[in-house]
């Protein structure tokens, strides 16, 4: 039986303890709701699929210091050497490594006039060859790959064909087909680039980039003396290849430095380390806050049972069943929890607005304060039920004894 009115009367006439607990609940809800939202957002970021076979792909960089080396020719030789090693499935030169935190990006326009180059979409920019798709393991969903004879070597201005990610195609062309569209690269030159393929998903190098899934691959090897290669190999072969690749490249030309050998998985872990740390710290804070609040609730119930022993005995003498005593304490704490939850929820929304303004966080979704209050109700039940059941065992004979 619910006795909301008399319980409210009792709470209103004996404010200090409940008020302190109420403040604790309000703060807990406000903080836990926002912290949970941030945790979910971070976990969501980390869980995004890159579209890449991350554990099989690693990068390496070759620094050619010998001025006699003709870079764009040497790079083609080097990539062939790598491709011919045991365990290698595919390899390509690349302007950047996905999820590595550093690389290229560019705006793309439909024309070359100043007007047409205003407010154009931005995308991560990969320069690579016909093995870029198979190296990364990305899925081609429209059009075709580059043919080997379509890949040029020597500089970015040579690019003439593009394979774009589905997100780039959608953001740029909407419902229009992307295949066959011609675009121009930012403010660099007037070379038209025709889109010949669309891949399902390809992430850029920057995990905090809002358009992380917008990527463009152009059909060019950059011809730089410092060249990055992406290699796909069986996971079991990667350790051996860390030794085999430098050995093979040095055999071809000893006067250079080969370094790197970081898998995309390792790049991912490194790039998301701050997010993981934030999610972990906030999770611990949430657990701690909820634990403290639960202990507060349980403590207050136990204190009230001690304080009200005679009252409980009297209630039992007057006809209260054990379940009436349990429901009395549950309702009392549910009321505190709901009032605290409502006020805490309002403060959580306000706090969310401030965080949105100050730290460019997304707007707090209402489900988080609601879920926090629901969770707190469950915790309240867990924290209160055992002491309340103990209270229900107080003998009605206590009413006639001095306590």
């Amino acid at each position, binding site marked *: *039986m619910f*006795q909301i*009115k*008399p319980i409210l*009367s*009792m709470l209103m*006439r*004996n404010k200090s303890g409940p008020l302190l607990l109420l403040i604790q609940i309000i703060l807990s809800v406000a903080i836990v709701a926002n912290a949970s939202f941030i945790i979910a957002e971070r976990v969501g970021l980390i869980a995004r699929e890159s579209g890449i076979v991350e554990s099989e792909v690693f990068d390496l960089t070759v620094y050619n210091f010998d001025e006699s080396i003709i870079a764009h020719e040497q790079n083609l030789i080097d990539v062939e050497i790598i491709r011919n090693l045991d365990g290698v499935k595919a390899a390509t030169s690349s302007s950047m490594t996905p999820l590595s935190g550093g690389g290229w990006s560019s705006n793309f326009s439909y024309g070359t006039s100043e007007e047409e180059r205003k407010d154009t979409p931005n995308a991560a920019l990969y320069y690579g060859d016909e093995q870029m798709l198979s190296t990364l393991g990305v899925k081609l969903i429209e059009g075709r790959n580059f043919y080997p004879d379509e890949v040029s070597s020597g500089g970015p201005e040579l690019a003439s064909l593009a394979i774009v990610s589905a997100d780039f195609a959608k953001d740029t062309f909407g419902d229009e087909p992307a295949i066959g569209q011609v675009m121009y690269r930012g403010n660099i030159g007037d070379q038209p680039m025709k889109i010949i393929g669309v891949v399902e998903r390809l992430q850029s190098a920057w995990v905090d980039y809002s358009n992380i899934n917008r990527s463009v691959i152009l059909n060019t090897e950059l011809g730089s003396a410092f060249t990055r290669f992406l290699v796909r190999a069986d996971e079991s072969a990667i350790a051996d290849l860390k030794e085999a690749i430098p050995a093979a490249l040095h055999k071809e030309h000893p006067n250079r430095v080969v370094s790197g050998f970081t898998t995309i998985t390792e790049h991912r872990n490194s790039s998301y380390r701050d997010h993981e740390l934030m999610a972990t710290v906030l999770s611990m804070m949430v657990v701690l806050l909820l634990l403290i609040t639960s202990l507060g609730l349980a403590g207050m119930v136990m204190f009230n049972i001690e304080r009200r022993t*005679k*009252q409980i005995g*009297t*209630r*039992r*003498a*007057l*006809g*209260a*069943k*054990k379940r*009436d005593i349990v429901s009395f304490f549950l309702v009392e704490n549910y009321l505190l929890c709901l009032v605290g939850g409502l006020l805490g929820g309002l403060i959580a929304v306000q706090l969310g607005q401030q965080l949105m303004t100050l730290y460019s966080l997304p707007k707090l979704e209402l489900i988080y304060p609601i879920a926090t209050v629901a969770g707190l109700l469950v915790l309240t039940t867990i924290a209160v039920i055992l002491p309340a059941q103990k209270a229900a065992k107080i*003998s*009605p*004979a206590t*009413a*006639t*004894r*001095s306590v």
Partner: protein
Amino acid sequence: MLSMNNISKVFKTDLVETHALRDFNLEVNEGEFVAVTGPSGSGKTTFLNIAGLLEGFTHGDYFLDGVNISNLSDNKSAAIRNEKIGFIFQGFNLISDLNLAENVEVPLRYRGFNAKERKIRVERALEQVGLASRMKHLPTQLSGGQQQRVAIARALAGEPRFLLADEPTGNLDSLMARQVMELLEDINKAGTTIIMVTHDADLARRAQRNIQIVDGQVCDFTMYQGGQSEQKPLTIADAASVA
């Protein structure tokens, strides 16, 4: 109304057994006003607790208003306490955080009366004890006598078949004690059976029947006849014939 046959109550610890009541026999008829006296530790409170279903007993039979009380479930006991018995405690046992109306309402809520019915009964009970005008006051704003009248109103609100009063005037001065006693007499005259535990021999004499408990047994009882001014002790044999 109330029938106890060979009731015994034994409190056991690892070392000792204490017989609070032994072979306790008592019949109380409907409409009686019975005073229970006895020295401290004689078993008065244990008797009251068993009579009021506040605690169980070890052996014997107990019938209350025709219901066999032995082996009742906790819920059933609570329901009988709520419906058939009104309690008046020595320390009043009012809930200090609730006002008078809310205090009187407590057993009515456990009975499941709706708000309208509760309001009617609360007003009627507080009117009966002369405190209808103070129903929004807190217990701490009242004198001891007034608090006990509120406790009586709480006991009466559910219209119980009988009242159990545990030293109802024990915490009151003589004037207030007299007022409370007069109130109980009025309630008894209206038909409610009353069992009152008291130390006060003068108050006990105002009841129709006195039962003295010594060492957990009824050792003597005296029955008074007529009104307060012409009370006359009867012999045990006379009393048996009246009962």
